């Protein structure tokens, strides 16, 4: 390619080669290493398409006759979600407030609470379910406890960030006329924070209904337990039925929840 003989431009700043190469190199290396580690193989994928379509055939049509047996476990799923949301929602309130830089009791408290909250967030809900199932036995109680912890994690993270963004005018005014910390929170911060809280609580409920679907896979109650037995017996038409039924229910619940949340904001 002929080089241009126009010289009116300033020199083009050179691309930051070291940065580019290391980023691209890292991405490539990570991808290749991971693909190798998990046994990724397009070949396998293509070969197994036949098996895949056979599985899809076996899974369809869903076993509608199975539905009556789903009712009770499904209600159990809902109950677990309710308990988890309520308990977790209540416990999340102090945790979230103390994790908000502008509302907390002091730097040490904030630090401890913030890290506590982050640690709660690291473990997936199924891990909590397994832990509680080991401690208090299999069944819906374990699931409810697990979801409570999960709910604390979800709500406190979202709500503490939202609390950090409120207008501090009124809380500061309350402090300056001699109000206690509790009064500042209750009368200064809560009026602004409560609508968000309700919205996040509803969101947590949606997540919990979904989550409690699968908690049963580790024995923590709800419809997941039936799912597990059916899957173990390779009754894929029933598995599909369960999943379908739950998905529809979840979608309905989410619609209702969204509608309520929209009315709030």
């Amino acid at each position: 390619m002929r080089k241009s003989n126009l010289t009116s431009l300033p020199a083009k700043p050179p691309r930051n080669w070291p940065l580019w190469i290391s980023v691209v190199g890292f991405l490539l290396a990570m991808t290749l290493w991971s693909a190798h580690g998990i046994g990724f193989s397009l070949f396998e994928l293509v070969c197994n398409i036949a098996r895949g379509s056979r599985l899809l055939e076996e899974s369809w049509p869903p076993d509608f006759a199975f539905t009556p047996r789903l009712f009770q476990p499904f209600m159990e799923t809902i109950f677990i979600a309710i308990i988890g949301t309520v308990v977790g929602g209540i416990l999340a309130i102090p945790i979230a407030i103390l994790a908000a830089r502008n509302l907390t009791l002091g730097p040490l408290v904030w630090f401890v609470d913030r890290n506590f909250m982050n640690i709660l967030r690291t473990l997936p809900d199924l891990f909590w379910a397994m832990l509680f199932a080991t401690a208090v036995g299999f069944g819906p109680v374990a699931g409810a406890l697990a979801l409570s912890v999960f709910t604390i994690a979800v709500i406190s993270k979202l709500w503490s960030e939202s609390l950090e963004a409120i207008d501090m005018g009124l809380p500061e005014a309350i402090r300056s006329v001699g109000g206690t910390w509790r009064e500042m929170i209750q009368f200064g911060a809560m009026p602004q924070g409560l609508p968000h809280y309700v919205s996040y609580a509803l969101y947590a409920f949606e997540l919990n209904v979904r989550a409690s679907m699968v908690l049963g896979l580790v024995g923590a109650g709800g419809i997941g337990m039936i799912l597990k037995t059916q899957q173990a017996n390779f009754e894929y038409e029933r598995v599909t039925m369960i999943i379908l039924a739950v998905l529809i229910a979840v979608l309905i619940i989410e619609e209702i929840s969204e509608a309520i949340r929209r009315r709030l904001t």
Partner: protein
Amino acid sequence: MSERALKPPVQRIGWATWTTFIIAALFLISLWAIEFSPKIMLQVPGKVAEDLKAYYPPDMEYGWNAVLPAIVESIQIAWIGTIIAAILSLPLALFGARTLFPRVARVVKFISATARAFPEILLAIYFVPIVGLGPFAGALAIGISSVGMLTKLGAEVVDSIDFGPVEAVEASGGSRILALRYAVLPQVLPEIVAHWLFRFELNIRASAVLGVVGAGGVGGVLLNTLSYRHLEKAAAVLLLTIIVVLAIDMISGAIRRRIINS
């Protein structure tokens, strides 16, 4: 002035109180339905405390030998799953922007809603019989599941951009595809990549869990140790998981902030 005038008028029962009543009622019904009794409630803290003693001290030798490889596998699963989802979701997000492609976007929205509906673990249940037990099934499950969410978020980002430059490109004779490349992508890429990174953080947690259905990763190890009540080993699993996830969260969060601010 009489004292009565200084008191606030009696408040009627507002909807907030009603809502609290309803929630409390639902709560109590649920407790009763799952046969929760005060006896159980009193036992719970005791049992949890008992277990906690058994978790200490964590068996770190087991940790290095058995747990770390499993955690590495979970990371790999999450990585590949996120890469698959990122590659698939980018074009889908572009075509799913109803401001750019009003008709196609509806189809894309439907696809992404369907993909989003399935928790990864349920997809894994289907993938395991297809490609066999192991992390490959897990990566595929995570990939498909994440495509839904990334497409939805990506389409929202595209919908929110400034369309002036798009029109300018087309007014100078460029096709829509070129407008995507030169006017849309430069505006949306940083935010979309940040979404990918956040998705990776979430997928680590998801992949950790997949081991429960045999799709690889640290979840299977945890399930094992708990089933045999080898609680010190389980403690090692938890400890290492927490540390690794926190580290990844921090690094990924820092990178995300750098990208958004570039």
